[in-house]
């Protein structure tokens, strides 16, 4: 029989039989990425709105830095955090290396510039009458940002989903900082790399299929939000 088709059949079998090891990895991966997305969103969206609404010295420079960070290789983030979190590093005493927290921090840093840029784009691409209308209705600076976020909430949610999608597909930093510890820091991407190198192709394929399903759901949500956004 064909190696690939046999492995594919076995992968479907693992998914259909609700293999505990498989779904444990999926849950770990989703949990870490979700927390990273929430943390990054909590910081990036307000920062993006404030940056978009205000003019200040160095704004262009900050935008250039954000654009650069968006293209930053994940292994570089992993490398820098490894240096900080390793036993001899300045944050070694926190004992974060090889913990889910380390992966969450790395993924949050990874998706922060993406979300912030999307939040900036959401405000700048909104109807140009939005902000003057809110100001004319009496919105003060402190609640202007909140109202802008409310009015662009679907695009902001799309930014969060995009960030989540980027986090769940990340492998470099998760491998370096998580250590791929079974049942603890083993995520879908690190598990695919490990299982494939071990020759357990069907496990890798099953995880790959589930990752594809998650990517499909994310894309479906994004296109739905595109349709319903006001």
């Amino acid at each position, binding site marked *: 029989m064909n190696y690939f088709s046999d492995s594919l059949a076995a992968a479907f079998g693992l998914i259909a039989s609700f293999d505990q090891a498989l779904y444990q990895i999926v849950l770990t991966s989703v949990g870490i990425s979700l927390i990273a997305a929430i943390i990054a969103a909590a910081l990036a969206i307000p920062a993006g709105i404030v940056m978009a609404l205000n003019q200040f010295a160095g704004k262009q420079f900050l935008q250039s830095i954000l654009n650069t960070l968006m293209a930053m290789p994940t292994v570089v983030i992993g490398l820098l955090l490894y240096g900080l979190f390793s036993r001899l590093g300045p944050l070694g005493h926190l004992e974060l290396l090889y913990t889910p927290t380390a992966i969450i921090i790395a993924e949050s840093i990874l998706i922060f510039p993406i979300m912030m840029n999307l939040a900036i784009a959401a405000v700048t691409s909104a109807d140009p009458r939005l902000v003057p*209308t*809110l100001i004319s*209705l*009496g919105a003060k600076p402190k*609640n202007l940002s909140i109202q802008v976020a409310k009015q662009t909430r679907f695009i902001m949610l799309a930014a969060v989903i995009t960030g989540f999608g980027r986090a769940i597909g990340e492998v470099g930093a998760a491998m370096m900082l998580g250590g791929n510890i079974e049942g603890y820091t083993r995520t879908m991407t690190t598990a695919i790399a490990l299982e494939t190198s071990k020759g357990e192709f069907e496990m890798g394929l099953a995880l790959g299929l589930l990752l594809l399903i998650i990517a499909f759901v994310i894309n479906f949500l994004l296109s739905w939000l595109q349709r319903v956004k*006001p």
Partner: protein
Amino acid sequence: MTNAYQLSDIQVYRQQKCILDIPELEIQHNQCIALLGDNGAGKSTLLDLLAFLHRPEQGSIKLNGDVVNRSLSVAQRRCIGYVSQQPFLLSGTITDNIRLALKLQGVEPKQYDKLITQALDQVSLTPLADQTASTLSGGQLKRAAIARAIAHQPSVLLLDEPFSHLDQSHIKQLENIIEQLAQQSSKTIIFSTHDRLQGAALADTTINLVHGTVTKSPLINLFHGQLNGHVFDTGHLQIHTTNQQPHAKHIAIDPDEIIISPKVLDSSMRNHFRGRLIAITEEATTIRLTVDCGERFHALISPESLNSLNLKLGDMIYLSFKSTAVSVF
């Protein structure tokens, strides 16, 4: 009694060009004021200043006698209702929009229902209270924006080109709403329009803007050009005037001062032009004639004069006016 607004030494620049220059302007309380001028005259810029959406590069604006600092106080903000030229309704229904406006103005929640009902009633939009912006026509959207602006009962209502992009029936409806609002005590309404006759008909008084400056001229028969001595050259016509202002670039002629005749008049008047009658329109109790003499002139005559002169479209006629009828600025 203090004025609603007092502007002093105002200058607004865009791309290093002065687009609004008002040394002094007072706007009294309880008046309906039309802001008249062509496109680009500075009407929207002035309304934005009055709404404190933008600040001038120079000068100060007093609201109800008080200089407004960097940010408006809650009481000052609540004095003003503003509707832009192309109003933007936020997500949700008309009621949601009005409720948000009341919330942002710091109105007590227990008053929301009463004020929303009142505002909708004033603009005759009660049946559409639960409709969203996307389902409204242009006229309904403008009325919804007015309801949102007046819900917190401001003493000053600013309307930027409220009649633009509307058909005649919606214009009439809006005119009635503005008239009704103007009749309310302690309400100052300032609206901009490029239709001078409509503005003059609706308002108690007018503010005339030309190229960012306020002028006392009625802005009808407005021409741009160069003044050489006592003769103003529009590029097509040479018009005699008694005024001499070294840097004047505009003139305006009161349409009531223009005499229409089938033949050239033998008189002391210095300005006589022959032109083709291209439009005859009714304006309230008078007739407006539009005559093309190289520049287009508007003259107002009575219906009786129209009959006695037996004028038809296309007739070649003469128009005459004194040099003292020409305002130079």
